[in-house]
């Protein structure tokens, strides 16, 4: 059984105000190209199809085109919703589409759905698990004390009575972590506000392959059979060094799994440049690479700059973010660090001493100090 594993499409997303729709379209074209070349039996999308619960018009159109093309290529499509999607909205027409070999599982209704696809070795069962939170799981498995994500996931998996002797592929969208290592994370993944979303990878280790989504960097989780396909497009500057791809997995007899990463190239790359403004905007430097790449620029000039963003954008139209690194910023940082201690409450008397010194150039006499202290005390009392 050969199938293509992709996830985190985030159709319609903008990064720093720049719409990624064209990049996405370009990536999809490449994916369809791969499908035509490799002729897989199925394609699996592991969540975060859209970027928002209610996606924009352009996004919906793009996904519609993609889906139609996929269906035309006579490939079975299996799709689950991610934490960015609206489960119910993604579920729309799913029952009708199942007739056309498109299996969408948007909302979790207490029962883990599965689709069995045949190959020469028999059947491969694909389990579709959309993104669930403890609160959604609680509604179905409530009595059994579902508090954390771990509880939710294990409850859901247990309820499905999976026969692990057969070949099973899980399609899920969660944050799985192996016991020891820290996974590769990027800024553009969302963590739910106010909650820990990590799930132990132990729970899914018995699947022959777990087609996962959520992390935007393609990686395995502990073992090779648990994989994140990664996003097809770079969605934040923290991903700039990654190489984007889709995963092509092949499962023959039980235990015989191979996979390959099919690379995807963007229209414009995302990278970071650092230097002085004049240098960066000069001809030699700007010609070195694609000027229309999405850039994070770090300026190191010491002097004050007039309209740095304007000047940068005139050469590099797609500058996403601008940062400064110079002695002042370094001082700021230390100041804030040091400033914290210094900012402890100065007593009014000390404050006044300083003030007096500054205004009149000399310290107070003993008599003056006495007067000041006495009056400050009485003023403090009077104010209460």
């Amino acid at each position, binding site marked *: 059984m050969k199938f293509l594993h992709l996830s985190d499409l985030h159709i319609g997303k903008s990064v*720093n105000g720049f719409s990624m729709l064209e990049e996405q379209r370009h990536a999809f074209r490449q994916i369809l190209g791969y499908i035509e070349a490799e002729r897989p039996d199925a394609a699996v999308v592991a969540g975060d199809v859209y970027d928002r619960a209610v996606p924009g018009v352009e996004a919906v159109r793009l996904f519609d085109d993609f889906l139609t093309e996929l269906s035309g290529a006579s490939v079975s499509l299996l799709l689950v919703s991610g934490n960015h999607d609206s489960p119910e909205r993604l579920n729309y027409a799913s029952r009708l589409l199942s007739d056309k070999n498109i299996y969408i599982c948007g909302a979790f209704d207490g029962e883990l759905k599965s689709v069995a696809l045949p190959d020469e070795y028999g059947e491969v069962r694909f389990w579709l698990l959309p993104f669930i939170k403890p609160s959604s799981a609680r509604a179905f498995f409530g009595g059994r004390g579902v508090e954390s994500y771990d509880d939710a996931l294990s409850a859901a998996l247990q309820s499905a009575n999976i026969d692990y002797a057969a070949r099973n592929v899980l399609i899920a969208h969660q944050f799985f972590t192996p016991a020891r290592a820290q996974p590769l994370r990027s800024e553009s993944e969302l963590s739910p*506000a106010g909650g820990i979303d990590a799930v132990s990878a132990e729970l899914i280790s018995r699947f022959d392959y777990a087609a996962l989504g959520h992390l935007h960097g393609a990686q395995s989780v502990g073992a090779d059979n648990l994989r994140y396909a990664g996003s097809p497009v770079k969605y934040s500057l923290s991903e700039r060094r990654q190489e984007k791809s889709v995963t092509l997995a092949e499962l023959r007899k039980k235990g015989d799994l191979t996979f390959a990463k099919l690379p995807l190239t963007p229209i414009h790359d995302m990278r970071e440049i650092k230097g002085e403004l004049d240098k960066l905007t000069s001809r030699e430097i700007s010609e070195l690479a694609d000027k229309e790449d999405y850039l994070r620029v770090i300026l190191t000039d010491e002097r004050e700059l007039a*309209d740095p963003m304007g000047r940068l954008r005139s050469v590099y139209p797609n500058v996403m973010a*601008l940062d400064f690194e110079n002695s002042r910023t370094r001082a700021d940082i230390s100041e804030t660090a040091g400033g914290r201690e210094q900012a*402890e*409450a100065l007593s009014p008397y000390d404050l006044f001493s300083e003030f007096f010194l500054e205004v009149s150039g000399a310290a107070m006499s003993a008599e*003056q100090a006495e007067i000041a202290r006495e009056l400050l005390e009485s003023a403090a009392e*009077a*104010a209460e």
Partner: protein
Amino acid sequence: MKPLKLTMSAFGSYADAQTIDFAELGSGGLYLITGETGSGKTTIFDAISYALFGKASGRARDNYKMLRSDYASGRVKTSVSLDFAAGGAVYNITRAITPHIARKTGETTYTDSVALTLADKTTLDRDREVSAKISEIIGLDRDQFAQIVMLAQNDFLRFLQSGTDERVKILRRIFGTGSLKYFQETLKARSKEASDGLALCRRDFERGGVDPHRREEQFAEWDARIKQDKTALAEADKKLAELDERSEALAARTAVAKELSKKFEGLAATRAALFWHAARMGEMSRLEARRVRGETALRRVKPFADKAAEAENLFASARTELARAKAEAEAALAELAEAKLALSGLPSLDEKRTAFDALKREGEKAAETRGKLTALKTEYDDISAKRAALLTLQKELSDVTGVISGLPALSGEQAALEALKREREEAETLRDALSALNGDYEALITQQARLAALRSEFEKLNLEFSAAESGFNAAEEIFLRGQAGLLARALENGKPCPVCGSADHPAPACPADGSVTENELKKAREEARKARKRREDKSNECAVLRARLDTLRGRFLADLRGVIPGAAEEAGALIKSGLSAANARLAALTEKKADAEKKLSDLTEKWNEATQRRDALSQKRAELRAAAETRAKRFLADALEFIPSGEEGAAGERLAEALALAQAESGKLDARKRADETELARLEREHKATADRNAGAELKNQSARTLAAERERRETEQREKRAHSAEAFAEALRTHNFADEAEYENSLASEEELSAAAKRLSDYEKEGERLKADENRFARETAAQEKPDLEKLAAETEAVNGAKVETRGKRDEVRSRLERTERVYGELRQSAARYAELEKRYAAVKQLSDAANGRLDFETYAQTAYFERVLRAANLRLKAMSQNRYALLRKTDGGDARKRSGLELEVLDSYTGKARSANSLSGGESFLASLALALGLSDVVQRSAGGVRLDAMFIDEGFGSLDPDALELALRTLSDMAGSGRIIGIISHVAELGERVEKRLSVEKTPSGSKIRVI
């Protein structure tokens, strides 16, 4: 301060008690409050703010009448109860607004109450106590709270966009720099005090003529002067004392002398008085004599005189009365005579009466006649009217009869209708027959067609069958040949053939081209069999159908001939046209029948109506006629008197004439009767009056006579009495030696005169005695003494007094001068002492005050320092939320001191490298900046206020102005801030937040108030 549980009753949009258990939302992180507009989200924050401080969250929501729920009835109490934890202890504060409805006016007044329960279960319930305690527990007052912990809707921009003055106020409240300002002011006051003190001292010196620098010399001078004056004063006092002594002695002597002098004078006066007293003696004795005489006259003689006078009076009055009575008697007599005369002069009453009665009777008769005539006339008129009515009726009747005869005969119409009905029925029958026939025909045609179809099908199947059969045969042939071929292959010459047994095989079968397996053969056979079956089935079907078709045809022909005898089958085609014709005719006839029916019914109706009417009229006429006849007869009988027989025709006129006459007659008689009646009445009255007069006069006469007699008697009596009393009086005069009445009169004196005289006499005596006594006394007292010289003494006294006055004046002068000098001197000495001290003090304080109140004053300095700190803290967050783009700066331009004192805010946009005013930020950016500022403020307050820990924060709206990226960053910042120990509550209607934030409070509007649910 961390809220634990909030309960609201009849508050805002919550009618009944709603409880929020914050524990359900966890101990740290964000939670979202969602709900429709106006459902009551902000009200939750209001409730918390109100519970703690007695005021709602934003400025505009303060009036507690606005806080009361409209859903609650007028009597329900509004209350908010908040359990919260602070500094490790748990407290509860409950506030309530209770309505009181005045029974008479129906007006509602409100009272607030508050109760703060501390950790040890004690309760505070006085407003000021509670406020103070809350400030203590939480560490913030209401303004600080509103600025830092609770970012109310629309309020958060205040700090960001306000001007320096506003900001100064806010910072002052938050950081309590008010006391520093107070300190400044105090310094200024002290400085002024010192300066004033110095000025006063200087003025004192001036007034005293002291040159501050030559003080000591002048003081010494004054000392000397004072000493001098003191001595002078002592001397003067001594002198004054001496003079006083002398004057006292003189005064005593003078008094004694005065006394003695008076006594001498008294003696002289008394002696003179005695002399004059003696001179009056003669007068007094004369007076005595007169008195005695007068007494006698009064007491002894007067009574008799009085009596006599009285008797005289009585007699006189009796006489007058007698005369009067006599006169009256005469008058009465005269009157009586007159009355009698009048009575006889009246005419007789009875005659008049009789004449009147006769007249009355006549009048009655006339009236009777008139009545009779009137009745007759009415009757006559009536009858005539009835006759006229009868005529009209007759006319009507003839009209109706005419109408009836005009109507066509019913019977004819009816017959026509019948005929029509029959015709129609016939047509209907024909049509029905044709219709049935048509049906049959059509069925026949259909079946014929069907048969044809079946036949063709059969043909097809037949072909199929043949094909299959031949196929099978072919296959079989091949198979057999094949078999044969197989067999043939095994043939060996000499070995017998398994089929025929021959050992000779001249022509072994060749395997056929093509092979057919046994299976295939079986299949072909099966096919052929199936085809045959199908063909047979179809053939049967055809046969069945053909039989049915024959029956149908037979029936059809029979029916057809029934209708059209001798018709051939082909006539079937014509049936349709015949049928339509029949239908048409039937329809036409039906219509005609309907018309005729209607016409008939109309006619019948008309006929009935007319006949009825005619009958009614007939009857009426008969009745009327009968009635009229009877009455006419009676009338003639009654009127015979006036209408002789034979003159009936002219009955009307006769009657009228007679009636008129009778009326006139009756009228005349009535008039006469009335006149007579009045006359009679008058006469009767007159008679009566005269009779009365007579009777009266008689009585009067009687009484007058009686009275006269009486009076006479009295007169005689009185005369006698008079004589008696005169005598007695004369006797009395003689007894007491009065010569005549005249003397008596003269001597008569009244009582008062007598007593007055007696008193005068006694007074005279007494005076005489007194004077004698005085004389004796004075003579005794002044014996052997000399008269003193008063004048000399007086002169001496005056001299001494003069001396005294002079001395005193001098002394007073000296004394006042001394006092003044001493006083001034004392004051100046004091001033001098103070002056030195003040000089020193003033120098110190002035410097402090100048510094504190200079162009850069102390409070501003302090505030600027705090402000800087706040900005630093805010920028940390703002940088994070704006991806390092924005930073808040304090505006610094202008001169040196000014530079440090401004509190204007600017925003530095690192993309452009320029700073711009905070007001130029967009809505979303403003929100982020304000949020950063609030968080910064919160940080600084917590650090500087020591024990203040802010474990909760509330943000009301503002997120709607952020784009998704900014929203993300803001949420992340808040989430970080919340961490695990703080809960931050957000009110927002932004849908995305609902997806992003796990814990939610949903506020739902219902018709009976809002309800809160934790999701």
